[in-house]
């Protein structure tokens, strides 16, 4: 965030505060105002884009903690979202209050995530990626066969204090609020002992042991917390869709989520926001451009529409990994520093 030169903290509490400068206060209030006024000014497709973005950010923040901070790669993130939806949807149907359903969805995602995180106690990196990939298919199988099948569950519009979230316009507020609440939790987790324990495990797990960090415990907790986010995001997505179906939680999305934290910059909240908007933006562009390309190459038209957005996103990911593996946030830090030390920057 913007910290102009000439800003000096007089005590440590200011330094770790959520908002550090009057400018940031203004930005925060303005940001919240714009977010909540947005639906009044933009067309429905744009609104749907933002709804999708906020749901994705909620899920990706979990991955920011699990993969970005704790270094545990997961290729099964959407499966834990599905768990949240499949646990939360029947509860909503029975009239359980929305907030409670969201918490239950999060807990369900978290607990299942913790169980499938157990291999992380023994294996790392590439092998762990494969174990979580297996988890994805196992969970999908279990959900289809024992928890409602391919049909899934109908999700009625939930309500809070008589206010029913029965249109996209209204659901937007539910989803944006959930996303901001989860963002606030993420900030709090990363600036305390837990966040540091996660980073300790990511950067050097052996040394983490010698500081008294119970590596097994914190790894499992990273899975629990990361998948809690997934569970919440999963239920919120099913509310938006009006339906909880395993098909909403695809493997492609798991990979895109990892792509988003890579593009954004792995371990920071702003990275999650930037990455999600960037990748979804590119995907949108692909969707807009695909029909035009199809006109140019009529013989390929059939396969073009679905493939172009995926190719676009894939290309962007490859470019990022090659050119700026530390993500957009890192680039932004560089720009910020050079502005701050202007005119001494080169």
């Amino acid at each position, binding site marked *: 965030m913007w910290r102009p030169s000439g800003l000096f903290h007089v*005590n*440590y*509490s200011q330094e*770790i505060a*959520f908002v550090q400068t009057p400018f940031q206060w203004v930005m925060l209030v303005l940001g919240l105002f714009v977010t909540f006024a947005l639906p009044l000014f933009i067309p429905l497709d744009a609104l749907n884009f933002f709804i999708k973005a906020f749901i994705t950010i909620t899920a990706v923040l979990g991955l920011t903690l699990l993969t970005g901070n704790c270094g545990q790669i997961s290729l099964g993130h959407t499966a834990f979202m599905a768990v949240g939806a499949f646990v939360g949807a029947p509860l909503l149907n029975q009239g359980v209050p929305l907030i409670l359903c969201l918490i239950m969805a999060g807990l369900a995602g978290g607990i299942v995530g913790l169980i499938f995180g157990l291999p992380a106690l023994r294996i790392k990196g590439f092998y762990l990626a494969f174990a979580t990939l297996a988890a994805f298919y196992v969970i999908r199988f279990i959900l289809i066969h024992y928890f409602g099948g391919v049909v899934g569950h109908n999700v009625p519009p939930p309500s809070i204090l008589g206010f029913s979230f029965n249109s996209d316009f209204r659901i937007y507020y539910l989803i944006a609020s959930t996303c901001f609440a989860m963002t606030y*939790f993420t900030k*709090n*987790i990363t*600036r*305390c*002992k*837990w966040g*540091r*324990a996660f*980073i*300790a495990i*990511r*950067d*050097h797990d*052996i*040394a*983490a*042991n*010698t*500081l*008294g*960090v*119970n*590596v097994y415990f914190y790894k499992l907790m990273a899975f629990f917390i990361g998948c809690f986010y997934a569970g919440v995001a999963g239920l919120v997505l099913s509310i938006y869709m009006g339906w909880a179906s395993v098909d909403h939680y695809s493997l492609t999305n798991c990979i895109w989520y990892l792509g988003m934290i890579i593009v954004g910059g792995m*371990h920071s909240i702003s990275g999650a926001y930037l990455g999600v908007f960037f990748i979804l933006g590119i995907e949108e562009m692909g969707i807009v451009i695909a029909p035009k390309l199809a006109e140019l190459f009529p013989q390929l038209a059939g396969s073009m529409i679905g493939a172009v957005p995926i190719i676009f996103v894939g290309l962007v990911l490859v470019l990022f990994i090659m050119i700026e593996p530390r993500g957009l946030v890192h680039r932004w830090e560089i720009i910020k520093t050079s502005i701050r030390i202007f005119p001494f920057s080169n």
Partner: protein
Amino acid sequence: MVEEPILEIRSLHLSFGGIKCLSDISFDVFDKGLLAIIGPNGAGKTAMLNCISGFYRPQQGKILFKGKDLTRLPSHQIAKLGIGRTFQNLAVYAGASTIDNLLAGRHFHTKENIFAQAFWFGPAMKEEMKQRLFVEEIIDFLEIEPSRYSIVGSLPYGIRKRIELGRALAMEPDLLLLDEPMAGMNLEEKEDIARFILDIHELRKIPIILIEHDMGMVMDIAQRIVVLDLGKKIAEGDPDQIKSNPTVIKAYLGE
């Protein structure tokens, strides 16, 4: 001063699939003592420390710390008992700032409840302040103020070594294990580190086990020296005894 051993190593045996790495090692570290372990490469010095911090499980023997056997404890619990250490190959958290590296060393001194914390940062804020003040004192002591906010991975080697030392100090250990803290440094940097080690030992009264290759340095600062060669203890004594010990001279100079 009553000489009380804080750490007792009792006939320790360690082997990896038939290859003997440590055989029948015994020695004591006394409260407020500065013990150096020396010996040629591959002598088993690092393996010795790894047994103490619980990374290696010796087949035989005991390691008593404040009277408690460590050989079956998981390493994070050994740390909590009060053993801090640094590594021969730097083990800092390269992706985090200096402050966060040191605060990570305060892990089990930091009392924070994740659930309360996730909702309201208030109570945790106080705790963070307390830890931060403690860490600031270490930053002053190690003279790394300018690197306070830098990402550790971007700092020079010598500074990173200091940060690793600071992280171990932040644990408020009752015993500090230092594995070649001066390796790869120039003379000036070595002297700085030697000064810090002496200060830690004399002002903070923390007993230290130091592994070091630079003989001159060891003879200057150690109170007692244990010499290992090929996994065996070949000598133990104060610097003057070691200097004139024929077995040691032979091990270092060859036949």
